[in-house]
């Protein structure tokens, strides 16, 4: 049978889209089980944050540990676990980036690259410690994964809102 053939494929070998959807749905399930029905603003903010972190974490684990950005993302999420933060670009990251980029970028890039890369480093998780080459690599992969994340999350929203 047709479905019998497909069933043998393990999740690890399936597309990143599938893995992300699977993990994110699991995480949402857990969140819904924990959910308290208090309608306060704080609870709502916290819930937003949790959903976002869940999506990022599932994206990172779906992307696998081969990528630097996914590792950095997971590490940050685990470190910030339990903290309330709506803004993802947290303070310690900026400190690190300002320290490292000054050291690293000066010999490598001319001026116009410096400006752009500075912004890119802040956006791509783990980008503070990368040189320009790997930063571009990671950015490309990160953009791909982000688009997948947005697509899948849109589907989720679509599904929930009917």
């Amino acid at each position, binding site marked *: 049978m047709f479905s019998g053939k497909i069933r043998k494929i*393990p999740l690890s070998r*399936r597309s990143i889209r599938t893995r992300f959807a699977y993990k994110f749905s699991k995480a949402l399930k857990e969140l819904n089980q924990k959910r308290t029905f208090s309608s306060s603003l704080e609870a709502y903010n916290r819930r937003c944050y949790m959903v976002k972190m869940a*999506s990022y974490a599932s994206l990172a684990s779906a992307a696998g540990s081969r990528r630097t950005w996914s590792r950095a993302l997971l590490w940050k999420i685990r470190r910030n676990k339990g903290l309330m933060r709506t803004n993802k670009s947290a303070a310690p990251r900026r400190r690190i980036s300002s320290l490292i980029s000054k050291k690293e970028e000066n010999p490598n890039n001319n001026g116009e690259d410096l400006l752009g890369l500075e912004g890119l480093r802040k956006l791509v998780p783990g980008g503070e410690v990368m040189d320009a080459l790997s930063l571009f690599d990671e950015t490309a992969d990160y953009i791909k994964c982000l688009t997948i994340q947005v697509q899948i999350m849109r589907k989720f929203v679509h599904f929930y809102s009917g």
Partner: protein
Amino acid sequence: MESVEALPARSPTGELIGTGFNSQIGDEIQRLISVPPDSGSSFTALLELPANQAMELLIHSSEDAATIAQNPSATIAECRLSPPAPVPIFPSDAALVERASKFSSIMSTDEISRAKLGTVKEEPLDSVSNPNSNSSPAVSNPAVDQNTKSTKRKDREKKGKESNKKSKKPANESSDDGGEKLPYVHVRARRGQATDSHSLAERARREKINARMKLLQELVPGCNKISGTAMVLDEIINHVQSLQRQVEFLSMRLATVNPRVDFDFDTLLATESRSHVDMSFPGMVMPSMWPEGQVHMNREQYQQPWQTDELQQPVWIREEDNSNFITPENSLLSYDSSANSAPLHSNQVKMEM
């Protein structure tokens, strides 16, 4: 004045060495008086010798004809030896060479003294190096080569500086031609930045970065038309930011949404596997597309066959849970079960494990 005094003391040694050097004191005085000896005359004197001896003398003195012009002491020694010495007088080449070396060394000291009196400043250096060349050629020739190399290097440096002033690429080309250490020095000097070496690797890396930039340009929509790295980078950053903002917005939506239906991953996966693999399930619409009422309708339709298959299902589902795969049929099933149907709810629980 010292040389004039020194010459009579040494002339007996010259008499001891050579048989035909009787009138050499006068010759030497004459030659000392004639300030810079012509290299051409020395060559003609060399030409009078037989070929092998001339070659010996050439090798021991200095290889380059151009360098002979720079160091006249050796040529002087040769031309002093050669005219009075006919071929049969020298029995062996080795003895000749030794004597010649001794004599030339003596004469080179004379040369030094004469240079101190004030001829040309470059001569003493060469005449110092030349006695070494006459005594031990293995040491001397590299020294001569080093001298020539150093001059060449200086020339290259000058060239490199000129080309560096002009533009960057010619500098790199000259670096390819010349030694490896030179270009790096000049690149650093030009930029005023202390890079490590490896300007070649640096350039290769920059090319790689450009390739990555092009890849990113293709990845970001609407970025192909833009030229200039700064603009492209801005566009990339904007794209990433917009994506992250979308994620934030979507997570807010997901947070506000009341999940009456415990969302099951299978439905989404079903849509994906349908879109990826196959469109050959005409009866099945994508569950996420269904409006609420239609779901109930369809549930009524599809629930019967699944309930008849209920004996199979636990095994079927468990296996599926292990392999982490969900077929479209199953997605329908789980969707229905999670939504409403009581008899299938146990299966749903198992799946959540």
